[in-house]
């Protein structure tokens, strides 16, 4: 099939970017979206032009690297599918496709379609952990977890940190991502000791990174390749309200030594 691509090209964080149009005359419907871009890039390289920079790693929908806004939808038109798992058969011969990077102040563009998502790493660092005692391993199953709870924790833990939720949100809010990370630990018995602090610290970091505020329109849930439910956002709100109102206040440095 023949396609016309409009692609965001931007040299680096400092320069202005713009949409550039490319023809893709030889696209097989069996290619993945990224393979299609690989072929376009081969042509560009052959012509001595700069290839289009985009991010990818596993190409099997598990790492969260790929991140393209395709015709205004994060990860493209297919539900519950990452860009790398999207196949060209979802498009028609002669289609025009707009390809843009995730756009958010907290995700500055590095080059073309590649953005810096380390804001997510800092949110995880702020609270995405549990305390584990050193020593011999515990017996498996010595902490009973109801099946229901384990399932919900696993649902939240599916988040691959791709950032599509931020990209799709009209407010560039990171609440779906943050809530998944707050919840998958907060649901389990192992995550209880830090539960309040986790909600406080991760939300505080999320705000500090400059993400917007959720207005409950659920565009995030619609594009999430792992179908993370907005139910977790309500859960995070609940944890945060509980920690703020009933908790013991902002965290004091732990560890017993001097600050």
């Amino acid at each position: 099939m023949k396609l016309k691509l409009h692609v965001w090209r931007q040299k680096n964080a400092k320069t202005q970017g713009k949409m550039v149009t490319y023809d893709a005359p030889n696209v097989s419907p069996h290619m993945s979206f990224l393979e299609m871009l690989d072929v376009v890039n081969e042509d560009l390289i052959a012509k001595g032009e700069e290839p289009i920079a985009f991010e990818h790693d596993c190409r099997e929908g598990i790492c969260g690297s790929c991140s393209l806004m395709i015709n205004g939808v994060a990860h493209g038109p297919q539900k519950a599918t990452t860009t790398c798992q999207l196949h060209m058969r979802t498009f028609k011969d002669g289609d025009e496709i707009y390809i843009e990077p995730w756009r958010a102040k907290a995700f500055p563009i590095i080059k073309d379609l590649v953005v810096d998502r380390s804001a997510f790493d800092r949110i995880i660092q702020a609270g995405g952990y549990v305390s584990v005692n050193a020593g011999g391993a515990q017996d498996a199953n010595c902490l009973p977890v109801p099946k229901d709870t384990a399932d919900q924790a696993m649902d939240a833990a599916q988040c691959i940190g791709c950032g599509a939720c931020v990209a799709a949100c009209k407010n560039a809010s990171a609440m779906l991502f943050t809530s998944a990370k707050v919840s998958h630990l907060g649901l389990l018995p192992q995550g209880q000791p830090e539960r309040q602090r986790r909600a406080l610290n991760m939300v505080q970091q999320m705000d500090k990174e400059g993400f917007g505020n959720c207005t409950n329109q659920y565009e995030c849930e619609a594009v999430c390749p792992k179908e993370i439910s907005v139910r977790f956002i309500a859960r995070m709100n609940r944890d945060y309200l509980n920690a703020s109102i009933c908790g013991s206040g902002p965290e004091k440095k732990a560890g017993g030594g001097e600050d």
Partner: protein
Amino acid sequence: MSWFKQFAQSSIGAKSAVALTGLAMVGFVVAHLSGNLLVFAGRDAINGYSEWLHSKGALLWVARIGLLAMVGLHIFFTIKLNLHNKDARPVAYVKKTYTKAKPTSRSMVLSGLVLLSYIVYHLAHLTFRVTNPEFAQLDVYTMLISSFRSPMVSLSYIVGMVLLGAHLSHGVTSLFQTLGLNHPKYNPIIRAIGPILGVVLALGFSSIPVSVLFGLVQ
């Protein structure tokens, strides 16, 4: 109080403030509609209700000031959140497709601003009676009838109430999520309550100017 400062400055704290002030106003609007519908019970019913309200003196003013504070805080926090949201996406998409957002949820700022101008007009018109000074001597029933005989006045009330319905059809459902209330068992009710309340309020309030306009109440 450092926890409170941190809470009020956080995204979730500000969102909760919008939700709680919104909820308080919803409570008022429901009570206000129940009172207004007395117009259909005749002149004496609504005039009696009005006299009873005015006999409360200081209490009435406490309620009015409280309500005004709710409006003020609601607007303060929505402006704060909205400025922050605009700032979070400095470069717009060349192409953006919405998949799930509804027209009501996408126009909350617009419906809110129209409501604000509606509230200002409504207070000037029927509470402080500055648009029509001759109302000062009239009883509530006569004032309503003579106001709503004007198609322009009726129309502006109807537009205001349709937008109130639109605002609340997203807003009321949304405030449950903001306050952390989301559960598969109750979600069908939560999803329905906003649109139902929005339609009931819009129809209920509009029924008064419409009835006067068509001479059903005179």
